[in-house]
């Protein structure tokens, strides 16, 4: 990576549902950016705000980051661990936003009770605002690897294919946060997500 490229700001929103591993995913992204030499701030949600509710983490990387929160319209990436959750953060999107959307669906209570419909057109609606929408069959790919639980790593791999952070920074981060079989499966999922996107990505931004 060239130095001047490193200095540019990259803002990522990770959207999910409490309990899906949103915090760990955000931690991995922020550590990878830090390992690649960026200043990083990452804001996350704990406690009651986490229990199965809609949650989001903001990861900001740049030469010098002040606010831990991203401004409206300021997201470079929206990474959605659940299919419809990306839509909750479209205020943060603009024509330069890439929305990466997974295939896990979790029905909110109003959908379960039948009073509201689950939005089946998440990708299409995201595409009306975001410059690019990338759908990743993360759960399917993770199942093929042997554990659906590592679907987050597939999505992180898809993100990694589009940000100027060397693979070694991601892999070092994984190795620092987990070990043994968990590390192996997650890295396999990560690489699968990376390979899935590498050929489609429009190039490093």
């Amino acid at each position, binding site marked *: 990576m060239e130095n001047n490229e490193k200095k540019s700001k990259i803002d990522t929103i990770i959207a999910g549902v409490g309990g899906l591993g949103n915090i760990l995913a955000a931690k991995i992204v922020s550590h990878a950016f830090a390992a690649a030499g960026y200043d990083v701030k990452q804001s996350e*949600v704990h406690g009651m705000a986490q229990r199965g509710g809609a949650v989001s983490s903001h990861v900001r990387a740049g030469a010098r980051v002040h606010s831990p929160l991203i401004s409206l319209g300021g997201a470079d990436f929206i990474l959605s661990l659940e299919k419809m959750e990306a839509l909750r953060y479209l205020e943060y999107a603009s024509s330069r936003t890439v929305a990466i959307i997974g295939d896990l669906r979790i029905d909110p*209570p109003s959908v379960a009770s039948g009073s509201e419909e689950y939005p089946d057109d998440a990708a299409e609606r995201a595409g009306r605002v975001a410059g690019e929408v990338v759908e990743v069959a993360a759960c399917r790919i993770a199942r093929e690897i042997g554990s659906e639980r590592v679907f987050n790593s597939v999505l992180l791999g898809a993100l990694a294919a589009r940000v100027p952070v060397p693979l070694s920074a991601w892999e070092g981060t994984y190795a620092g946060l987990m070990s043994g079989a968990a590390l192996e499966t997650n890295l396999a999922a990560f690489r699968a997500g990376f390979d899935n996107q590498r050929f489609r990505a429009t190039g490093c931004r």
Partner: protein
Amino acid sequence: MKKVLLTGNEAVARGAWEAGVEFAAAYPGTPSTEITETIAQYQEVKAEWAPNEKVALESAIGAALGGVRALACMKHVGLNVAADPFCTLSYVGVNAGIVLLCADDPSMHSSQNEQDNRFYARMAKVPMIEPSDSGEAYGFVKLAFRLSERFHTPVLLRVTTRVCHTRGLVKTGKRVETGRKKFDKRRHLHVMAPDVARERHRLLARRMERLMEYSETTPLNRIERGASAMGIIASGVAYHYAREVLPGASFLRLGFTHPLPERLVGRFARSVGEVVIVEELEPYLEDAVRAMGVKARGKSLLPRTGELTPDVVREALSRGRRRRARGAAAKLPARPPNMCPGCPHRAFFAAAKPLKPVVFGDIGCYTLAYQPPLNMLDVNICMGASIGMSFGFSKAGGGNADCLGVIGDSTLLHSGLAGVMEMAYNRGVNTLAILDNGTTAMTGGQDHPGTGRTLKGETAPAVDIEGVCRALGVKRVFTVNPFDVMETRRVLRRELKAREASVIVSRAPCPLMTGERAGAMSVDAGLCTDCGACVRINCPAIGRSGGKVSINESLCIGCSVCSQVCGAGAISRTSDRKNSGKV
């Protein structure tokens, strides 16, 4: 010096450890919990979960008087509980340093109010330090201990959710042992009886004058010059929002926020065209700055409720010019927080719902039962309040017995036992359900005096909850397994009608702690009448597919509550149905 990525909470723990802290006590409370969990990993620190914040602070005071640096951590409302010792501690002073960390929660991400604890510093006459990010949190806590000993005062380290739960890069160092200071046993020095306290209060007033001088010169309060005529006074994370939105402004960045530096504020105000104060919640800085005779604006531009964001600050300071977001937030089904699949609290509320009692709730995961479609809480205020409130309500109702208090095990031991005494001693007729899941679940599963384990992982005596209630005078004490919904309902119905105070201990462990799962449940579409009984227990594993109720078998842990409330017998364990050939 190594640069590491730490949350504000981890940075406080790291800084305190490096400062030589040997004792840390807390009661878990979002957003402060991970400080004590982190510092407990250092073997030099005696770290503990106290039963509540008052005891945590009192233990820390004892440790500091005993000669070692001590840290007490709590969320903002925890300081209400600890306010009694806190407001007199400043009179007593310290031996080794003592720092009280309180974590405010603007926007109430996980709290019942958004009180602004900066006023506690003024009320208790205690110096206050406010870091704006992880790097400052790490450095400021070290300084706080030095100041505590230099000025012989407790120090309030005030943080907010966005400082606690934001990761940032921190340059860490080494731990420095500070040694044990000898306790000064001179007569009356630490005994706050009126004659002593009067003298100590005069000393305290003089200490505040010295601290005011310190505030003028401390590097924590500094001016950052910009090119424009705009002068911003800000502290905490609000500084970073303002700095991002107005990179060209001049800043008076305040890290030491009580007492405030009057001369520095005056100097700054004279050097800029206009002064705007950017702070979250109450006009704490603004009122003080205006009382200094400085013309400044703040809350006439910025909201007094909720946390700030870069967009809120931008809109306020650019006179309505909001950055246009292209995508309005899409209209989406709401996704509020909920109790987990297999939660024993849901099982209890499923049992209680048809009885329609007036329910006084408390603080914990079970608070979430207030939401539709469960709608099971009628009143909820603060830790421990369910008991006194349900007692008073039934008393006022001339003995209205259908009144239920609901409290968790950790919350009961935090501040509920005095309430149990109230209902026994003053002859209540209310019923108290103690939902004992064997952990402090909402904050992530911390131990407490009822779990038989300490923060350091050692075994400890476990409080016998039924035994305590009996010892406090309650005659009718019963234990149920909430996953037996019908039996729980039967006992609850009987006790709600009893004209005597009663306690029902509803005991089943939090499945997040045990990790245990039984086989998942599923719906037999042929038998399902779509009556909605299972949907009304609000389990995240119950959804719809193809217009029919269905159970997400990867979320379901097989607690079977849905099958017990199903009148059509349409829900059963998938493995059982397969075995009986019905699939």
